[in-house]
């Protein structure tokens, strides 16, 4: 790392401490010796027209700009978070530069007023002129920085804020700022000079923040007389109304501004739709494909049930005695196929007769299957639910037919089954369900 030149060490470490010490000592000393000199030395009685335009635009501009500086320097994390939204950054930059110009115009007006008004000359000290000149220079430097090196709201929290915190925590590090462009360095030096001059000049009025002006109603001095009293009341009401409207517009515009910052960009993106990267896009398409296939399968099943008189369930060998195989019956409801205790297949509806949930496929020790929705156990062999179960009606047994590999029908549930069967023969067979008669 390059060493920091002495001049920078002086300007960005020595001067700041000098300024801070002077600031603190000066303020305390002035407060203790001459408390009432804490004033802005108003000259409103001497001249008020130019003062109105100059003072109002200067103060509004500089207060907002300073507030931005302070938040960014004290809470750099929060500020960078805010600025990472592009719309916010652009707005802050634009508004900041505009406010800088407004305050500059105000200052110039105030300086012009000081210099041209005869009456003001009498109350003007050289220190006043120095302060105005310094302020003009400072604002000019700030606006220039904003124009030449834009997005300061984005880069400053990461560079200037650590420098400032370094100073405050007595670990000064000028390297953060030593390599900045000259314009910005001058802006920093100007800031420290203003801090240095603070206790010596009328700048001290800053510490007397007139908060109460925000909350108290406007005062109107009137003579005590009934007629004038009424007029004065109407006048004060008019003023109050104006204040109300001004506050209303201010509140709504702040809300509108914040909303447009937060909502507008997202709303546009909401309607623009999603531009996914190829991997996500592929996954998405695949997922949709799977769902489409599932829907197509359902349609296929329906078609199959319309067309065919019998439908394959499984090979007989695949059936198990205690775990049912799910199938879809002719009414598109689920059903289960077991290997019955007598060796013949057993096909039973799995649509719970209570409220139509799908009954589980695992048979428990007592030969029962469970509907998980409202806990109904059904005996697979009879289809009957347990006494006291929510389901009252039994699960239907479905008609099935066994067909061997050559396509010959071996057995059918409804045609009476022999008590014994030939396992070797059955092993070659497949189980089919049969279309119910009444739908034919």
């Amino acid at each position, binding site marked *: 790392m390059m060493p920091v030149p002495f001049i920078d060490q002086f300007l960005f470490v020595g001067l700041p401490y000098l300024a801070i010490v002077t600031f603190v000592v000066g303020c305390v000393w002035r407060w203790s010796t001459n408390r009432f000199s804490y004033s802005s030395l108003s000259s409103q009685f001497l001249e008020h027209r130019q003062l109105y335009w100059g003072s109002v635009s200067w103060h509004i501009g500089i207060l907002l700009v300073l507030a931005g500086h302070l938040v960014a320097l004290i809470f750099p994390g929060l500020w960078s978070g805010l600025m990472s939204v592009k719309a916010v950054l652009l707005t802050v930059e634009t508004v900041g530069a505009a406010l800088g110009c407004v305050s500059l115009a105000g200052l110039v007006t105030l300086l012009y007023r000081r210099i041209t008004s005869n009456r003001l000359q009498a109350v003007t000290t050289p220190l006043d002129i120095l302060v105005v000149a310094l302020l003009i220079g400072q604002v000019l430097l700030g606006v220039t920085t904003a124009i030449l090196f834009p997005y300061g709201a984005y880069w400053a929290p990461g560079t200037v804020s650590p420098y400032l915190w370094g100073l405050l925590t007595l670990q000064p590090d000028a390297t953060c700022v030593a390599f900045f462009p000259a314009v910005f360095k001058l802006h920093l030096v100007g800031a420290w000079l203003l801090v240095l001059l603070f206790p010596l000049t009328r700048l001290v009025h800053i510490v007397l923040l007139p908060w109460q002006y925000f909350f108290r109603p406007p005062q109107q001095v009137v003579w005590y007389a009934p007629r004038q009293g009424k007029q004065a009341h109407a006048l004060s009401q008019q003023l109050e109304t104006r204040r109300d409207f001004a506050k209303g517009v201010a509140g709504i515009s702040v809300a509108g501004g914040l909303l447009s910052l937060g909502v507008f960009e997202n709303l546009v993106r*909401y309607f623009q739709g999603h531009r996914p990267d190829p991997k996500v896009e592929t996954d998405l398409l695949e997922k949709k494909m799977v769902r489409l296939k599932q829907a197509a399968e359902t349609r296929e099943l329906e078609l199959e049930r319309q067309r065919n008189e019998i439908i394959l369930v499984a090979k007989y060998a695949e059936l198990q005695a205690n775990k049912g195989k799910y199938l879809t019956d002719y009414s598109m409801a689920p059903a289960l196929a077991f290997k019955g205790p007598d060796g013949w297949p057993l096909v039973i509806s799995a649509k719970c007769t209570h409220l139509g949930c799908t009954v589980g496929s695992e048979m428990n020790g007592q030969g029962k299957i469970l509907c998980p929705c409202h806990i109904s156990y059904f005996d697979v062999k009879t289809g009957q639910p347990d006494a006291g179960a929510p389901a009252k009606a039994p699960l239907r047994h479905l008609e099935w037919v066994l067909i061997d590999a050559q396509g010959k029908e071996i057995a059918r549930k409804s045609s009476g089954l022999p008590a014994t069967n030939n396992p070797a023969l059955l092993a070659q067979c497949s189980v089919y369900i049969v279309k119910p008669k009444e739908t034919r």
Partner: protein
Amino acid sequence: MKLAELIQTSREYLSERLPLKHLDFQHMVEKKEVPVHRLSWGYYTGGLALFFFLVQVVTGLLLLFYYQPTVSDAHASVEYITDHVTGGALIRNLHAWTSSAMILAVLVHLLMTFAMKAFARPRELTWLSGVALLGITFAFGFTGYLLPWHQIAVNATKIGMQTIEALGDFLPGSMSEWPRLIRETIQGEASVGQATLSRFYALHVIVLPFSIAAMLGLHLLGIQLHGMSPGIDEEPRKQERFFPVFLIKDLSVWGVAFMVLFVLALCLPFEALYAYPLFAPFDPKSSTPEGIKPEWYFYFVYYPLEILPFWLVMLGQAVAGAVLLVTPWIFRGTSRKSLRLLAWGAAGYLLAMTLFGEQIYHLFKGGTL
């Protein structure tokens, strides 16, 4: 009674119920006053429900741009909204949370207006439109629940629809077939499927919004024409002006409600309150997951259905509905004190079933699951 007399009577009746002569700025805004007393918080519940409805309209419209009401795509499109659309998760979550909030607000509003006897003459029509709004709101909940087409949506809807059919067992002769026919007419097919989804979608997005807008118009007109009901028997502490004092307070309540909803929608996915298998896409061929239940706002019928005989619950529901419809006439002479007691009773029942329904169920059925 002669025809002329009949016409005259109904004219008088209607002009008292809908005093259109008050339909001007002065009566509806400038002169309108709201009594201040210990129950005046009840005046805010209706406005709150209205606010939630407006949120639902906005978020619902936004969702409409992406949602696809087909069996194969519905769940995928909802997932797409949640995972890929900018702000989609927030919008969807807001819609879900607000639906619950709206139902809650509507129920509290119902109980409060009952307790404050706001249905009394000349406000009968406002009450009736309110009952219609209640029905429409529940219909919104029921139809909207199906649309994401996940396991709990489809299975809970199936159960709900099956309840209609179960009525058939208690009807004589050929009438026993009617509930099944009604169910299949609502569903559009024998079981809950694509036809059901299309119908529920049409209901949720077109039919119900238009009906609620019409009813809401009538309801709000009634309120503005008649002004707020006194609410208590004694003289109120004072009257405050509707504009701007009450309106400002009402808007602050809306602001607080919005912040609460926003924080919830941003920070707590509605789905996190359920077990995840319930939110998997509905698969007609796999097993029904455990824990299928209707939304919390149907617990007050659901748990009694689980515990008590079916006909008893249905009878109770029918009686409750009928009482709601004729409340302005049967409780005409009841004192506000008794009404408050009744409202407390109803609130107690609803709270118990909604919060402790599960425990009550186990208490009655004995043992654990």
